[in-house]
């Protein structure tokens, strides 16, 4: 089966600009996750969707970050406006079911550099 697709792979923007990332999960996977991975750290969960509903967005900086998963399939994550500290790899992952007993399959990530 095809893996999790993400685009773009790399993005360089200046602070205060906007940026959007796209993720297409594995077909049939109900749960979709967006993570932020800063260099040298583990992935930090930003938002978790089950189908098209939000399960957890407690660590999403809602003043500048937004995400949606229309129709319960692909998803977009937006940052507006970007700050220097947003420089990181943004990973999308999906799992077949709900909760923590399913394997998460990660996409290749989008490396964001904010200048």
């Amino acid at each position, binding site marked *: 089966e095809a893996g999790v697709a993400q685009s773009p792979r790399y993005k360089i923007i200046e602070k205060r600009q906007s940026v959007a990332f796209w993720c297409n999960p594995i077909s049939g996977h109900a749960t979709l996750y967006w*993570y932020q991975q800063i260099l*040298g*750290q*583990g*992935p*930090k*969960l930003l938002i*978790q969707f089950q189908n098209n509903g939000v*399960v*957890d967005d407690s660590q999403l900086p809602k003043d500048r970050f937004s995400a949606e998963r229309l129709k319960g399939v692909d998803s977009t994550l937006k940052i507006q406006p970007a700050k220097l500290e947003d420089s990181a790899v943004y*990973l999308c*992952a999906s799992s077949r079911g*709900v*909760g*923590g*007993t399913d*394997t*998460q*399959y*990660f*996409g*290749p*990530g989008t490396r964001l550099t904010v200048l």
Partner: protein
Amino acid sequence: GQQVMQIPQYQHVQEGEDFTTYCNSSTTLSNIQWYKQRPGGHPVFLIQLVKSGEVKKQKRLTFQFGEAKKNSSLHITATQTTDVGTYFCAGWGNAGKSTFGDGTTLTVKP
């Protein structure tokens, strides 16, 4: 909130030596997953542990889940250069939320 700590942060070994990374949670976990991330790559699932005291093996890798379900370890016997990467644990709490540790980065000198 739930915190997951991993030690050591870095480990440098000679090829053939053993390697162990430890994962400790501030709260009791429902299950724990281990992932490997190669340099420049993305995390790839290795294994999941669910039961208290569970031990699972994958060839040279041995995974353990503590009796109290608050800690876990990954042991690699006789490391090879292909084992290079960062090993992450992800602890899942009873509320269905997960927290990743910051990983242990393994380098292997041939």
